[in-house]
């Protein structure tokens, strides 16, 4: 199976400070990989570098997405090419209805892929079905993007966007943070429902808890800007037992 994403010796700086210090990672099509690591290990930096955020400067290495040089693409091009970032802190956009934003986003991607745009009826039909799965009220379509949403509602809205956008690569940045156990289960079910042979996911999390619900094919441990261990789903349990200190110190085993 082809690789959707290949990260090779990736170094990146934020405000001149090196955060990523040689990340190597391969994500085959259709697989779900988790990236775990302590605070400050570079998990969120990696997600922003993949999404193309300004201010995150790659100083060395490369990222190949579907055989193309990802770093040559602007943030919006990447999104239209099928990369989706579920934000750790979804941004509030006063005055812009969730549906207006999402429809513009979905159709920007469809135009880029030369697929027919969704008209208002199709959009509404699909939205309603997905909102129901995520146990979200339809009123979330008309409310301004994330404004007045609770933490859990914001995260569910991200997963709703992801489902509508049908990405090839979804990056979930600490999607579990701030969720209670019920919300976590709903979000995880929403994510699992979207697992597909043509969709890969990078699930970034600090806690093992999320991986009880979203079971990854592989787990990578990031520490001090490098992948220090990779392994199967059982690695999460080892992390739970021994903590990051034990694993991160054991670099020779990586």
């Amino acid at each position, binding site marked *: 199976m082809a690789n959707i994403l290949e990260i090779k010796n990736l170094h990146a700086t934020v405000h001149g400070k090196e955060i990523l210090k040689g990340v190597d990672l391969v994500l085959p099509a259709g697989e779900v990989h988790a990236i775990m690591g302590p605070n400050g290990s570079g998990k969120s930096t990696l997600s922003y570098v993949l*999404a*193309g*955020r*300004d201010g995150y400067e790659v100083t060395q290495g490369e990222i190949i997405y579907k055989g193309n040089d990802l770093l040559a693409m*602007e*943030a*919006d091009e*990447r*999104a*239209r090419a099928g990369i*989706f*970032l579920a*934000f750790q802190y*979804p*941004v509030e*956009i*006063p*005055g*812009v209805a969730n549906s*207006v*934003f*999402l429809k*513009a*986003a979905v159709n*920007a*991607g469809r135009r*880029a892929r030369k697929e027919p745009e969704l008209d208002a009826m199709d959009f509404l039909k699909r939205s309603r079905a997905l909102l129901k799965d995520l146990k979200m009220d339809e009123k979330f379509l008309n409310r*301004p993007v994330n404004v007045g949403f609770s933490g859990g509602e914001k995260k569910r809205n991200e997963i709703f*966007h992801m489902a509508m*956008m049908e990405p090839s690569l979804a990056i979930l940045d600490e999607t579990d943070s701030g969720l209670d156990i019920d919300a976590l289960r709903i979000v995880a079910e929403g994510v699992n429902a979207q697992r597909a042979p043509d969709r890969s996911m990078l699930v970034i999390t600090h806690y093992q808890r999320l991986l009880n619900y979203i079971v990854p094919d592989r787990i990578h441990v990031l520490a001090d800007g490098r992948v220090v261990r990779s392994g199967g789903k059982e690695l999460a349990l080892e992390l739970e037992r021994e903590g990051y200190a034990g694993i991160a110190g054991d670099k020779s085993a990586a």
Partner: protein
Amino acid sequence: MITRTPDTPKTVAAHVAAFDRLAASLPGTANGALTALRTRALARFTEAGLPTRRLEDWKFTGLDALTRTVFSPAPSDDMPLPDATRLDTLAPVTDAIRLVFINGRFTETLSTPLAQTGISVGPLARALDGIDADALSQGDGPAHALIALNTAFMSDGAAIDLATDTVLERPVVAINLCGGEGAAVHTRNIIRLGAHARATVIDIHAGLDGAAPAFSNAVTDVVLAEGAALWHGRIAAEDEGALHHSHASVRIGANADYSCFALSVGGALTRQETDAAFTAPGGRVRLYGAYLARGHQHMDHTTRVRHDHPDCSTDELFKGVMEDHGHGVFQGLVHVAPHAARTNANQKNTNLLLSDRAVADSKPELEILADDVKCSHGATIGDLDPDEIFYLRARGLDGDAARRLLLGGYIEDVITRVDDDALAAVLRVHAARWLGQDAS
């Protein structure tokens, strides 16, 4: 910015000459008190001259443009009439009572037949012969020359006079079109709502197709009796190069409710003033607005609210977007007198500067002389939020689409406070048109 005194003497002399020439032909000549009022107003204008930047109120807005052209009251007879499409474009409201004024004169053929409007809504000029002249002088401050000029020359405007408990179901839309080389148009609207009466009045100012840009100087007097409620929309969508000044003088009775949205999307120089005062306890004022300036446009929103009675509230939000060399001004004064206990006042002004050369001046001001009050104010000037732009781009919108969506949302965030559907719809159309022209 260079401060210099406009060439007032020449301008004043031109207006005096115009008054001598035209006084006999102004509406309401049968009303001696009105004629006397006009004459006094002209004298006050002559004495004060045009406001200059040396006046605190005019610090950020100069009227030099008014002295570069000699303006005098405009003819209307030989003006080409706009077609219905243009009127619908300006005011897409089905079921409105529409009053159309061309260069300050009522144009019956384009308006809702007066037989349908009822006696409470119609053109002011027809009522001037019998009107109580005192009703026309409430906005005349001691030093406001442009209001005095309007009083001297007022030609026509919307007159809305609702009896107690009358609810006007249809919104009144006054469309004011003006144009012509050196044309000055002095529109006067009068809105009086009896106790518990309710109405929505939308006042739209725009240019006449094919005519040179003009000077529009509109004054609206509003009196709300106990428990009355008015939604007042004011839209300045003048042509490029036009000068627009509008002033609303508002008196709010016990538990009455004055809500206003002032939108500026056109004109070379636009200033919309609101001067509101509570005349009894328990009233509420909501003043909202947006000013969208590009090119070399200058847009000024100046508000004053006087709390002279207890238990009244004011909520203000004005949002500016300036690009190119656009210049936006917000001045807001809330005055709370010593005995105006339990006053609740919020005042907020935000500005987006989308180019290095755009300018925003903001002066929110609270004068609080009472103790038991809740008041807040704030102003911000900045650019679009990069976090918001990134969020939209990370979902596939290109930079331009993201910027457009955010600007639309920024403006919608204040329009959404308008709980009158017809007015909100008209505001959205004008704001969207401004955003759509932004193809650069």
